[in-house]
């Protein structure tokens, strides 16, 4: 096991960028012999905002919460399979709350050395930069952060991995 990076956390949110990040994290974890955890956060903070602003009804909030929980299970199991394909056991973490807050908490509680995230969304308006939750997490976590890019290279790296 590497002394520099012992524990890696990959944040997955169901996007293609996050799936790519998970593949990269598996490669990195195998190469460094580091422990790998995958985190999905059900954004209940957003659901609460929608109820308070009256865009969602109470029963609508519950319906979406259940669907998001099901999404979390599905995505995390997909990540588990990405690891299993390369004989790597990934610890799955399913949390709910504010995305940036839960990522930060998870990094601290699990003594994570490196956070791996997918490519950030393109900034389309001045307001976006204040509200991108992954970017906020990237800025606030106490550990180093790696943003995964270059899809072709990552697939090639993953395919080559034994």
């Amino acid at each position: 096991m590497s002394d520099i990076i012992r524990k890696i956390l990959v944040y997955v949110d169901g996007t293609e960028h996050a799936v790519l990040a998970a593949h990269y994290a598996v490669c990195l974890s195998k190469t460094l012999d580091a422990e790998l955890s995958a985190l999905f956060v059900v954004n209940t903070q957003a659901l609460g905002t929608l109820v308070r602003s009256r865009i969602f009804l109470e029963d609508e909030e519950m319906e979406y919460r259940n669907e998001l929980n099901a999404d979390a299970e599905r995505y995390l199991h997909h990540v588990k399979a990405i690891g299993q394909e390369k004989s790597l056991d990934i610890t799955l973490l399913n949390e709910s709350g504010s995305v940036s807050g839960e990522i930060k908490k998870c990094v601290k509680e699990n003594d994570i050395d490196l956070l791996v995230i997918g490519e950030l969304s393109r900034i389309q308006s001045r307001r976006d930069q204040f509200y991108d939750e992954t970017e906020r997490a990237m800025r606030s976590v106490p550990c180093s952060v790696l943003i995964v890019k270059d899809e072709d290279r990552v697939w090639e790296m993953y395919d080559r991995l034994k």
Partner: protein
Amino acid sequence: MSLLDILTEDVIAVPLMSRDKSGAIMELLKLLKKSGQISNEDEAYDAVMMREDKGSTGLEKGIAVPHAKTAAVNKIAAAIGISAEGIEFGSLDGNPSKLIFLIIAPPAQSGTHVALLSEIARLTQYPTLCDELVEAKSPESVISILQGEE
């Protein structure tokens, strides 16, 4: 994903020609159909109105956010309608809605649907921005205002 990732000028009605809630929703759905984003506007209309029947999405300060999940779309779609006179939407404060954000999502994309509605909820917290949108004279101008360039 943000609103500006999916919003195009051809799905922004400035001004809305309709004078009532059902007409305005159908007008926006027809724009989405014309732009190739929904397959069946009647199916989408039924889904939106079924949601409205449970409780109006007319918020305060002249904003309405009708939305629904339906198999009539393959990926999430949004349209905006602006009516300077306002449309009776059964809103919380009783005022007519001048700014209407319509969101139509496929059943299996709850995460994106919630993210997009959250973004609109945040936009409604900027009264100056909403006033500027209501004053917009063209779809191009609406996009520029949302980008924060006007």
